[in-house]
């Protein structure tokens, strides 16, 4: 018997490896996570081309690329993790894991890792694809885009854990994920850029959880984001993640309701 003491990284890696196997065996999750974010942007391309983008200083590429990243965060990360967290809780896996050396945050992070990696790789591929296919050119402020993506991943994971707190079964996840999906797609500039909305509505939409991500990614490519705008977006995204972390600590359910 070895006397090796486990480390947080080692424990999360063991859990993530098992989750990766499960991800590969869950056909529904696989399709939703891999297929939807890659096809939706193409489905909306013709609609985007109809929009009057010139006046807002935008191009098709500058709308499509953030939209693609938004879809990836929503489908590959957010909604697939709501299913994962809910399924593991209902199978009592989370309760069992909590009896061991894993800390609570490690349980959630380890389970989330495969989806986060999938989302990250997908976003990178989509960014490269959009840049090349839609004549976008290299990003003028790549650090903002990268920061936006990382903030988007952390917000998606924490929002997924929070949504799972109020989701009883994997089936009901299809309903409980709708508010975040719809609000983000319509209000965070994924489908319709905020620049095209009335000012008052646009400033309200800027406070939504994934709006800063879209803003930062778009700004990263266009280079049109002022320092203040960038900082506001970063602060908003961090605030959402902090609030979601507190809410998860308060409301997350580790066991099924009896």
């Amino acid at each position, binding site marked *: 018997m070895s006397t090796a003491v*486990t480390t947080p990284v080692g424990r999360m890696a063991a859990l993530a490896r098992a989750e990766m196997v499960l991800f590969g065996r869950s056909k529904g999750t696989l399709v939703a996570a891999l297929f939807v974010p890659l096809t939706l942007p193409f489905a909306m391309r013709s609609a985007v081309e109809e929009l009057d983008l010139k006046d807002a200083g935008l191009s098709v590429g500058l709308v499509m690329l953030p939209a693609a990243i938004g879809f990836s965060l929503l489908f590959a990360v957010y909604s697939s993790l709501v299913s994962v967290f809910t399924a593991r809780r209902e199978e009592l896996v989370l309760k069992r894991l909590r009896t061991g050396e894993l800390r609570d945050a490690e349980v959630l992070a380890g389970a989330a890792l495969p989806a986060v990696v999938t989302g990250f790789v997908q976003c990178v591929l989509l960014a490269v694809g959009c840049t090349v296919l839609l004549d976008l050119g290299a990003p003028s402020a790549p650090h903002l885009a990268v920061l936006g993506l990382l903030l988007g991943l952390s917000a998606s994971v924490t929002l997924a854990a929070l949504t799972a707190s109020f989701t009883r079964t994997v089936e009901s996840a299809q309903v409980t994920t709708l508010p975040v999906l719809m609000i983000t797609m319509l209000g965070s500039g994924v489908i319709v850029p905020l620049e095209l909305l009335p000012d008052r509505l646009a400033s309200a939409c800027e406070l939504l959880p994934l709006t800063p991500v879209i803003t930062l990614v778009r700004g990263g490519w266009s280079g049109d984001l002022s320092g203040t705008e960038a900082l506001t977006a970063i602060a908003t995204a961090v605030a959402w993640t902090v609030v979601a972390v507190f809410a998860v600590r308060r409301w997350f359910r580790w066991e099924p309701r009896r």
Partner: protein
Amino acid sequence: MENNGHEHVIEVTDLRRVYGGGFEAVGGISFSARRGEVFALLGTNGAGKTSTVEVLEGLASPTSGTVRVLGHDPYTERAAVRPRTGVMLQEGGFPSELTVAETTRMWAGCVSGARPGHEALALVGMTGKADVRVKQLSGGERRRLDLALALLGGPEVLFLDEPTTGLDAEGRRDTWDLVRALRDGGTTVLLTTHYLEEAESLADRLAILHEGRIAVTGTPAEVTATQPSRITFELPENFFVGDLPPLDQLGVSGHEVDGRVVRLRTRELQRAATGLLVWAERAGVELHRLDVRSASLEEAFLGIAREVSEKPAPVQERVA
């Protein structure tokens, strides 16, 4: 902590656990288990067994009272306790789409000083199931997988919540042998069960929980001794209870008559049985359906459950 073989590995003092809705699942209990001892918590469903064990496992904090496992608070000092404990929950807790080997490998990555997975599976006789998905295992096989994982790190303290539920007779014996071997190797085992035979056969000491309180605690022999033995028989034709010898002279402490069936309770079984049989011999009658039995844990259990529900303030007998 000194390792003199006598320290209390588990110490529970005035533990209370009240749930959100105000329901008091555990109402102030105290007990302790020494190193290398098998301690069983017995009780009907809803007696508070799992609510107690969850606090010991560090899954929940007590509403009041203190709990120490290996000298630490299992909830607030989790990092100090977890590498030295093994836990088997009452129910499952494994992703159904993973195989047994994948589940074991995942769990081994989360356990300090884990033994090789195949060794743990061999301990519980699951070697041949390594490539089977968890969803295809029988209930008993899942219990054995759960036990294998609880044993992966060679724990000093093992919590087993109803470990043999769903096992067949042979599987149950195997588990009992394994628990005895672990105990002999110095592992402290806290066991909950509603199989009285299991507690009688495995436990060095036990506590019977009833409605969140300890009704009685001690060795199985001590707990059994709190209950009278029983003699049951059918009264012969044309005989009445009054025809029997005076019951107090037989050492009988109480009796019930149900139709023609008579039940006697006694703490002096030999004297009562001899008196009754000598009387029957002299009267020239045969006692049909005669059944003479010393108190078992089962009767103690049922007796205590009855007693406690009749008396609002239970007698708490504490064994230090």
